[in-house]
């Protein structure tokens, strides 16, 4: 479970102070598929960065999987990120100098798995996204949709509890976006909690729950009309 209570986040530059998050409160339950929408600059990415421990916050409380985040060292935060959170980015963010195998391997090495464990996880997660035969390919040799699948494989390889996605389909055409969305649905069905930031209202509609962020606050929260009831979600 992920719980944020009155989180505040201020960016201070020479010129201005931006209150990117103000009294931001949210609870995400185990197994949820949450869509976060809102206009550009409303604070969606900031929320995701704070949730994913990529950024610190200035006030409020944040508990991730029962752990109070405030006051953790860099090493503890990095370890939590590594074990509990998978990231998917709008621009895929694969490492261009590494082939698919090595890309998926990145978080597993930081996790301290041995070579055999890593290999098994890399192969099965690439298999899962349908790229099991492309281990030696480099990101530049793949289409955008394929690259995003590799990124998803990389995010899943460590079996995280949470998957955080910032505009995962933002750089993809409709067809590819659809298939990536289907993959995320399937991942959610097997028990991974997903928080997805998106512009795309139709994608947001497909999730179980949707929130709208405006000026750094959650301003509308409720179940998406077409999503199944929370308690009917399959757990693995």
């Amino acid at each position, binding site marked *: 479970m992920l719980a944020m209570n009155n989180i505040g986040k201020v960016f201070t530059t020479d010129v201005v102070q931006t209150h990117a998050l103000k009294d931001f409160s949210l609870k995400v339950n185990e197994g949820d598929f949450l869509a976060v929408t809102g206009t550009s600059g409303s604070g969606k*990415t900031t929320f*995701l*960065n704070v949730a*994913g*421990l*990529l*950024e610190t916050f200035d006030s409020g409380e944040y508990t991730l999987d029962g752990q109070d985040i405030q006051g953790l060292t*860099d*090493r503890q935060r*990095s*370890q939590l*990120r*590594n*074990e509990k959170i998978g*990231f998917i*980015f709008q*621009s895929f*963010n694969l*490492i*261009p*100098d*590494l*082939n698919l195998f*090595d890309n998926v*391997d*990145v*978080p597993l*090495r*930081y*996790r*301290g798995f041995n070579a055999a464990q890593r290999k098994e996880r890399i192969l099965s997660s690439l298999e899962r996204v349908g790229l099991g035969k492309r281990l030696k390919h480099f990101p530049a040799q793949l289409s955008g949709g394929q690259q995003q699948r590799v990124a998803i494989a*990389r995010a899943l390889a*460590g079996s995280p509890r949470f998957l955080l996605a*910032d505009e995962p389909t933002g750089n993809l055409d409709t067809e590819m976006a659809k298939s990536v969305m289907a993959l995320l649905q399937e991942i959610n069905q097997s028990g991974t909690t997903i928080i997805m930031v998106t512009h795309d209202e139709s994608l947001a509609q497909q999730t179980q729950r949707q929130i709208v962020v405006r000026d750094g606050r959650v301003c509308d929260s409720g179940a998406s009309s077409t999503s199944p009831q929370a308690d009917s979600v399959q757990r693995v």
Partner: protein
Amino acid sequence: MNVFLNVGPIFRALTRHRFSAVLVVFQIGITMAIITNGLAITWDRFTHIERHTGIDEQYTFFLTSSGFTQDFNPRATIESDLRLIRATDGVIDAVQTNSFPLSDSGNWYELQTSTDKDAALIPAASYKFDEHGINTFALTLVAGENFSEQDTLWLNEADSKWPSHVLLSKATATALYGESDWQSAVGKTIYVNQNTPIVVKGIVEQLHAPWVEWQHVENSIISPARVTHNSARYVIRTKANRLDDLMQSLSATLAKENTQRVIRKIKSIQQAKNEIYAADIATVSILLVVIVVLAFVTAMGVAGLASFNINKRRQQIGIRRALGASERQILQHFMLENALLCAVGAALGVLLTLVLNIFLVSQYALTPLPIVYLPLGIFTIFAISQLAVIKPAVRAMSVSPAMATRSI
């Protein structure tokens, strides 16, 4: 935490940027070859210059008295000069001698333990001075005894006569009688120039030949003799801190004492040494400057390239942080990447070091590189390049994980 965590992927990623990798590798290899050989030459020359000659170099000077008149009496002059010098306050002792270490002039003979045809010929520099020589040069008698006054001969310049007794340097005795038996030389008869028998009276710890580059520089033989000649060289040892004033006052006194001669070539042993090694000292200084400059340039090159690569990869660093790398692991990532380049560079460096050394040995007759210089060179180049990469790597460490989502 495993420092070598990412060796495989880092290495594979480097092979994707061969051009810049090869550039650093070559720079590191070439630098290592030059620094390693430079250090070896520097150390070799330094130890050569700093080695002991067996005499007190610090408070000893010499001067030449040259008689120029028809009725100049060399023997009487030497006798009265030595009496005067030895009685002067601040003088420890003095001798008249044909030569001395670092003087770069003298002669040598071949010694044998018997007149047998196949007995080994041992070359040894020849010194001629009286029983005050041991005290004047601060030599250490390690076996037998010093000459007595009666042992000392007066020889003409043309005289090829040898005295009945001599002293040997320990190295000479060792060359004649072996490592374990050098002391047995005392009392034995040895032969000079394959025919003249003389008895060894004592052995001194060390007394270098006059020529610093001579292969047998440790070998010397001392005859108790004073050669009368219009020009006489005196070697004078003074008490601590009296060297400078006695160099001036004694030469003035001697000149005044006997106006039938001039006093010239007044010099301390230290000055003679500096002159003899002037070229070596210049070489070593230039080499050291080259080594330091080269180390600096290479460090700048390594740091510059690392900086460039790290700036280019800021987002990648953010991604790694997002995927769970701690700050320390990012630091280690770049230190390790540098270490890998350095390892390949050092492997090339070992090869280039040996090639350069073979070239130097063949062209300039230098001594072959002692093998310890290879690990020393490898260590040096690693230290230089790891130190150079610390600053950029620390900057990489401070890249925020949010870089993963914020840029582009």
